[in-house]
């Protein structure tokens, strides 16, 4: 019979049982909070990185990843704000250079020196980690090299005005753009509402070519100035593109997605985008029966580094400092699994560039092979928002928009940047 005493004993046994099993389980299962910005629209994420994370979870049932996905534009702000409050996840995607630097300086991230030999130098050259290296310590491992500048052009539209090849020089480019305008075709599709497009995609490469690839470092070291004529000339190119009406008129109220759409809908002949666009462009071109060519900005007179192409490593994960031993072990296990040779080869297949020394797979698509050849003709140069401190990024992002609306001259913007340095 179950009387009061008996039921109490049963109750106690149950409670002890529950406590015991949960404590045993807690010992076995490690929970890690993870943040990243891969919403899965791009091939590299949906076909490689996201399946990799899934596979890891399947193989390691005792490591539980609590994942938050935050779209790129808000991700940086969110991470910065959370970091300012000292609350960051255990594993998180971090952005290169000046973006991750404050987190490192605040001691929020774990340095990977103890385990970095796993990758260097056989798989990843130490140089490729420079955007995440501070005081000779590495704080993140990147999956990709993001070149931030390519020109995508509609071959048929260019043919309409008599161009079968991409113009060699900027002068010729302007002649072509005028001809397109005369035919009522918008030469360049631009969507600069979020303000980073003119900076990351345009001025980074144009600036690198006119000023040389060491310029930004020299400016930050105080050896050169933003008021340098070469930099003003680079700003003038952007201003000229806007003043001549080569962009669509509503460029400042569209986002970068709408910019690509206008190109796909044949409302513009050209758009400038980054390596992240390559997969999508090649695929859409196939679906829509479009004839798309890929190039880089034509040669401008007076270039110091004519073959510079702005690019930076990305899709990197960092680990929070102050994890428990078990968590640390699990996080390192994840990194080793995630940044494997296999991952890099798979990434190459989706049309991404990688910082690792791996052989090109034989089954790579011919279009991507062409892009690889194009990139191999160039030398990598810095991307402005990966090098400049955050207040200068803000100044140049806003300033470039003001250049296009005619509210600022190149000289004024250059002076403002020098003042804010």
């Amino acid at each position, binding site marked *: 019979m179950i009387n009061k005493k008996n039921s109490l004993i049963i109750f106690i046994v149950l409670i002890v049982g529950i406590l015991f099993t949960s404590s045993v389980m807690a010992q076995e299962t490690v929970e890690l909070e993870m943040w990243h910005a891969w919403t899965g629209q791009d091939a590299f994420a949906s076909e490689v990185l996201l399946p990799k994370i899934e596979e890891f979870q399947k193989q390691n049932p005792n490591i539980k990843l609590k994942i938050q996905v935050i779209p790129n534009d808000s991700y940086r*702000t969110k991470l910065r704000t959370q*970091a300012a409050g000292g609350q960051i996840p255990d594993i998180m995607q971090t952005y290169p250079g000046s973006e991750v630097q*404050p987190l490192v300086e605040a001691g929020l991230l774990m340095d990977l020196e103890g385990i970095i030999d796993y990758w260097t130098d056989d798989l990843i050259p130490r140089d490729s980690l420079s955007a995440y290296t501070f005081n000779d310590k590495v704080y993140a491992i990147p999956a990709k090299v993001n070149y931030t500048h390519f020109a995508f052009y509609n071959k048929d539209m260019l043919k309409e005005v008599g161009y079968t090849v991409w113009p060699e020089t900027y002068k010729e480019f302007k002649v072509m753009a005028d001809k397109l305008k005369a035919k009522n075709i918008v030469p360049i599709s631009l969507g600069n509402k979020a303000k980073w497009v003119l900076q990351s995609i345009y001025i980074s490469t144009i600036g690198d070519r006119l000023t040389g690839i060491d310029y930004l470092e020299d400016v930050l070291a105080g050896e050169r100035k933003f008021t340098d004529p070469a930099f003003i000339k680079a700003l003038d190119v952007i201003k000229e593109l806007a003043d001549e009406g080569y962009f669509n008129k509503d460029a*400042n109220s569209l986002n970068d997605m709408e910019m690509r759409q206008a190109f796909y809908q044949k409302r513009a002949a050209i758009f400038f985008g980054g390596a992240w666009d390559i997969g999508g462009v090649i695929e859409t071109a196939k679906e829509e029966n479009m004839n798309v060519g890929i190039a880089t900005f034509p040669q401008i007179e007076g270039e110091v580094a004519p073959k510079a192409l702005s690019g930076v490593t990305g899709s990197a994960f960092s680990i929070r400092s102050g994890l428990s031993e078990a968590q640390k072990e699990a996080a390192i296990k994840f990194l080793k699994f995630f940044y494997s040779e296999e991952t890099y080869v798979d990434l190459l297949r989706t049309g991404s560039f990688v910082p690792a020394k791996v052989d090109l797979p034989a089954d790579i698509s011919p279009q991507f092979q062409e892009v690889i050849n194009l990139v191999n003709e160039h030398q990598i140069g810095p991307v402005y928002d990966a090098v400049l401190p*955050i*207040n200068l990024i803000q100044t140049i992002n806003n300033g470039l*928009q003001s250049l*296009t*609306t005619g509210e600022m001259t190149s000289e004024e913007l250059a002076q403002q940047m020098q003042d804010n340095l």
Partner: protein
Amino acid sequence: MEHIYKHKKKIIYLGILPAFLLYLGFVIIPIFISARYSLVEWNGFSPPSFVGLENYAEMFGNNIFWRSLKNNMVVVLASVLGQVPIGFLLALLVNQKIKGRHFFRTIIFMPVVISAVIISLVWSMVYNYNFGLLNNILSFVGLESWVQNWLSNPDIAMFSVAAVIIWQFVGLYFIIFLAALQTVPDEILEAAKIDGAQGWKRTLYITIPLVKDSILAAIVLCISGSLKTFALIYVMTNGGPSHATEVMAIHMYDNTFNGMKFGYGSAVSIFIVVFGIVLVTIVRKLFAKFEN
């Protein structure tokens, strides 16, 4: 009556307490914390350093701040002179015994409950230069010359945005006024009718004075709401092109979370609070003056 009330005073305070504590913790105290942050230079990571009133000096010396204040005043004026009168007129109309007034009531109120992000996206499409509804209608009726770059032209972008703000919140004031109009006793209106006050005259001399308190409340709400306006503009234009639609809240957000200048951002926030209190006080004084 008074006696009963006295006994219940404690209970009343007890009832208010939870809400008051929340309000204190999440509104009042943060304002003071912000005030303290506004006196330091701080990027969120390194230890803050005390700079006195330097952030305020920087703010008042910043052209973009003044521009954001000017833009914000456009929003305040558009709201007070747009939302309140339109809301009042619509309330007068729907307060009549007309057919389908329930339907109109819902329709007019609807924008208020739709998320600001959705409204912004829809209006961005309406304003789109190439295939937007507005430009299409204009060219369809032969007004090609009126076709505008509604959100990209710095000269008119602020007004395009303000129009959407009016559109979204008319419903809120409409509901406030409708509720107020329904408290106006029929006897008074009937008496006025007998005395010969009809139509506009009756509205002007009988109805408006009777709902005066609601109008004041609406204007106060309107001013404070306009000063913190953020989401619509953030999504539609992100403050651009070249600061043409940057209001104070966006200026604050951009500097705080994109520029990592927490001290400066706090200074702007404090200015918004003080400026709001000043504006509201002026409006109240004006109303009191009219009463005398």
